[in-house]
């Protein structure tokens, strides 16, 4: 391929553009680093603010749970749920309460709702993780749920409970979401 004058001119401009771009990029690196750090800090701030808000909002529930007053905690949760009916944290707390009240099928149903809304609750590294609770619940109740469903496959409630536990098991197993 032969390059004429026009080609050479274009190649020169192309090289100049590349040099200009490189200069521009090199000058923006410190600015970029600052911006990324700022963004990361904002993300951390948002996460912590959310955590702080949830802690504050649900503190009466947590206090009742800590005192072992599960029914009282459930009623306090009902009050909060009137204002924030779609909040994942409410479903997760409800699941915990049901678990402690010995109602595993209801616990699984609530935890499923919570995890569907916010997968952070099943992550290993998340600060709000309830992975241990969910693992224990699935391990302890899934075999019974399978045999109960096999004994009565037309029972819609048993079917739903099994589907809930399988969903949690699948989420615990990982994979793409």
């Amino acid at each position, binding site marked *: 391929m032969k390059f004429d004058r026009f080609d050479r001119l274009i190649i020169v401009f192309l090289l100049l553009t590349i040099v200009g771009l490189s200069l521009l990029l090199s000058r923006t690196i410190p600015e970029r680093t600052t911006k990324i750090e700022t963004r990361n800090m904002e993300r951390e701030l948002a996460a912590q603010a959310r955590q702080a808000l949830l802690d504050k909002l649900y503190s*009466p529930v947590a206090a*009742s749970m800590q005192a072992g*007053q*599960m*029914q*009282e905690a*459930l*009623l*306090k949760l*009902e*009050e909060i749920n*009137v204002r924030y009916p779609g909040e994942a944290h409410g479903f997760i707390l*409800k699941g915990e309460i*049901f678990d402690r*009240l010995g*109602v595993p*099928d*209801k616990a699984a149903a609530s935890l499923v709702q919570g995890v569907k809304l916010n997968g952070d609750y099943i992550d290993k590294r998340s600060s709000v993780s309830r992975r241990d609770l969910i693992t224990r619940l699935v391990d302890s109740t899934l075999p019974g749920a399978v045999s109960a469903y096999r004994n*009565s496959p*037309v*029972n*819609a*409630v048993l079917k739903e409970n099994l589907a809930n536990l399988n969903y949690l098991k699948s989420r615990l197993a990982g994979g793409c979401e």
Partner: protein
Amino acid sequence: MTLSSRRILPLLLIAFSFFILSSCKDQSRKVVKIGYMNCNNEQETKHRFVPLTRYLSDKVGVEFVMVPVDTHDFEKRFNQGEFAFTHTNSLIYIVLKERKNLTLVASEKRGNFGSRSGGAIIARKGSGIEKLEQIKGKKFAFGPMLAPTGYLAEYDLMLRSGIDPEKDFASYTIPSGSFKHEKLIYGVMFGEYDVSAATLMDLEVMTKEGKITADDFTILAQTPLIPYCTFGAAANADPALVEKVRKALLELKPTDTADVDGEKVKVMKAAWIDGYEALVDKDYDPVREMAKRVNMPPYQKF
């Protein structure tokens, strides 16, 4: 084009026959009655369960008629054969099961615990009563005597905790009239009673409705969860019909509607329920054990 009278007459006759046949359709359906136990009053029972009864008629192909029945008359009227299907609390169910071999059809789901519910013993917050043992010598109120989670379960809980309701209270009472369960909760809230039995369902519903707050009360103890409202069928009811009713109840969805006075009404919403579940009779054993310990029907010994 003109039609002669010889052509019009047969057409009119056919149309008239269709009209007569269509109006006979409902009358030709078999009529089956369902007895619904009144929770609070007859009007409320009708309001809640007419749509469900209509839904069952549509689904099963039988003309169901609802019969509101007072709790204390239920067994007598059932024995008289006034209705073939029953909708009662779990205590009345086991009474009829033991005495008349009632068939379990389906168990109602409502509230946090689904087909099960429980009771609690509550005191007003700030009253100084913080623990169950402190209720001795206080004014106590129970729900209706045949209420599993407003009377039976709490009575049993107290007996198992070493408290004899017959001896250990300054007084105990059962409010009269309608809405007895709500009266208990308001009674404690406004200081008429020191302590009372309360169904978890009522506490949950009243909290959701904003009538009370969780901070108004101290929950001193909670009973185990037991099955609650239950559909049953007389032992001599057609098994195929019982199966159809069970299927219709288990298939009930929040979107199902029924025509009531020309209006489409959502069945589950009207009846305040979340659906039905197929429990087995063994699931009612905790109620039986409670009834035995509390010396209540059907195991009452004099």
